[in-house]
């Protein structure tokens, strides 16, 4: 999809000889555009839930929330967290955007089900630990977060693979790769076999939005206010039509 997006962007930009963006600039704009759209999925998901609660959305093909869920789930990753030297502290993955579920794996024989761990704020954790009734235990474990570390409670959760994390990761940075061979137009030639090639991870239905967003960034870059305005109005129109 990335080549198609780039071709469309260049095609629009070159109209009336507005300008040209280099592959490295395109890659930077593509990353920003993808992050914008990725984050919008979460806002839109919440919007759709509110519409459902107001009984303003339908089911089946009209279930837009499901579409958002599917896209978000395509970024879902489940992995074991690395323990920090036999403490109850675990290192979070570097690419997490949202920690959806944290589980405690007792690693017992016979196997016991994973227990969902509950996120507790730093303000509440001491109160919780001092409570007879609700103090975290292996049936109802809890965790707090600090920087890129997760602290598990009770403190007996302290061995490698004790904590399993299901999270939504950031999309990988898109990269339009090319080979620098002389062509008739002087354009670099798209090469999807390069080791660092990375396509967009958003669904194809987001291609128009990607084009518009990249155009906005490109318009700013080449100081063409017309491009920015057109792209911005297209973006607004698209957003309005999706509500």
């Amino acid at each position: 999809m990335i080549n198609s997006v780039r071709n469309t962007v260049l095609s629009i930009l070159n109209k009336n000889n507005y300008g040209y963006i280099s592959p490295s600039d395109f890659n930077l704009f593509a990353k920003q555009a993808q992050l914008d759209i990725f984050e919008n999925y979460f806002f839109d998901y919440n919007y759709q839930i509110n519409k459902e609660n107001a009984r303003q959305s339908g089911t089946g093909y009209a279930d837009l929330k499901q579409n958002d869920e599917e896209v978000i789930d395509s970024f879902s990753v489940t992995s074991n967290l690395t323990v920090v030297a036999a403490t109850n502290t675990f290192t979070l993955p570097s690419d997490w955007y949202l920690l959806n579920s944290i589980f405690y794996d007792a690693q017992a024989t016979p196997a016991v089900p994973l227990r969902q761990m509950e996120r507790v704020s730093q303000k509440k954790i001491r109160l919780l630990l001092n409570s007879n009734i609700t103090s975290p235990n292996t049936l109802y474990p809890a965790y707090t977060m600090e920087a890129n570390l997760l602290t598990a409670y009770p403190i007996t959760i302290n061995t490698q693979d004790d904590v399993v994390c299901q999270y939504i990761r950031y999309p990988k940075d898109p990269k339009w790769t090319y080979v620098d061979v002389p062509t008739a137009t002087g354009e670099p030639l798209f090469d999807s076999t390069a080791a660092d090639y990375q396509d967009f991870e958003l669904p194809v239905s987001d291609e128009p939005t990607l084009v518009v967003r990249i155009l906005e960034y490109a318009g700013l870059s080449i100081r063409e206010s017309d491009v920015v305005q057109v792209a911005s109005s297209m973006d607004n129109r698209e957003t309005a039509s999706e509500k």
Partner: protein
Amino acid sequence: MAYISAYQYYENGGAAPENANWGSYQYISLQDIVNNFLLMYDGNHSLVNNEERYKILFHAKRAVQELNYDAFKEIKILELDVCDSLRFVLPPDYVNWVRVSMYKDNLLMPLTENIQTNYSDAYLQDNNCRILFDQDGNVLKPEYSGLDIDRITSQQKSIYLNENNSLNGTEGWLWEGNWYFDYAIGARYGLNTETANINPTFKIDNKGGVINFSSGMAGELCILEYVSDGLYNGDDSQITVNKLFESYVYAYIKYEILTNKLGVQEYVVARAKKEKTALLRNAKIRISNIHPGRLLMNLRGQSKWIK
């Protein structure tokens, strides 16, 4: 929790103790309750949303405690010997007593709670009745108060019609060749029925964690029927609720969350309260086991002549 096979039920799968699963089908575990509540009553399209699990767990446990105090009718029973100290230390999961009995001569004899006190704290005093202190300014106390010593040494007199009654053994009157002395035999008019009991008496020292008996209990076997709070000393895996109360517990949690949440309309809170109350009433009726067979047994005595 998963359903278990008949072998698991009857013989615990060959593991000890064999009776671990007997009767377990009557109950639902706390884990299931919290899990089911989060699944069914909490979510984007539910009245309860974005609530911390520890709040749900707290309210679930509070419901279990409240139900254990009366509605469950699950009485725990403990038998212990009462030694010369005339004390029965309350069990670790004791919350309130239902009945205290003496088991003697193969008979269970319910004991009466003494309407007077039979124990006391005491301070040491000098000859001028001045209270004595230690070097840190704390009051010095004897091991036993005078009241306690008298009770333990069987010196304390009782207003009950037992052997420690102050009038026991005093001179009575002669009637048809017999001397009558004791209140215990009922030969007195104007009997105070509240204290007309020959059995030993007891008084519970709740803060001290003991039941103090009158001297007649020395060396006897005491049966304590009591209620606990059902929390099994913090072992969450042991906590269960009778299935007849399952819906009530969900309703209780929902009500407690809604009533404490900002911005919930009053009619929603009122609806939750009504639901909770109705479910508790239904469950209590169900667990009281009123069925025709039982009523029939009671009604059989309806035409019996009372002489």
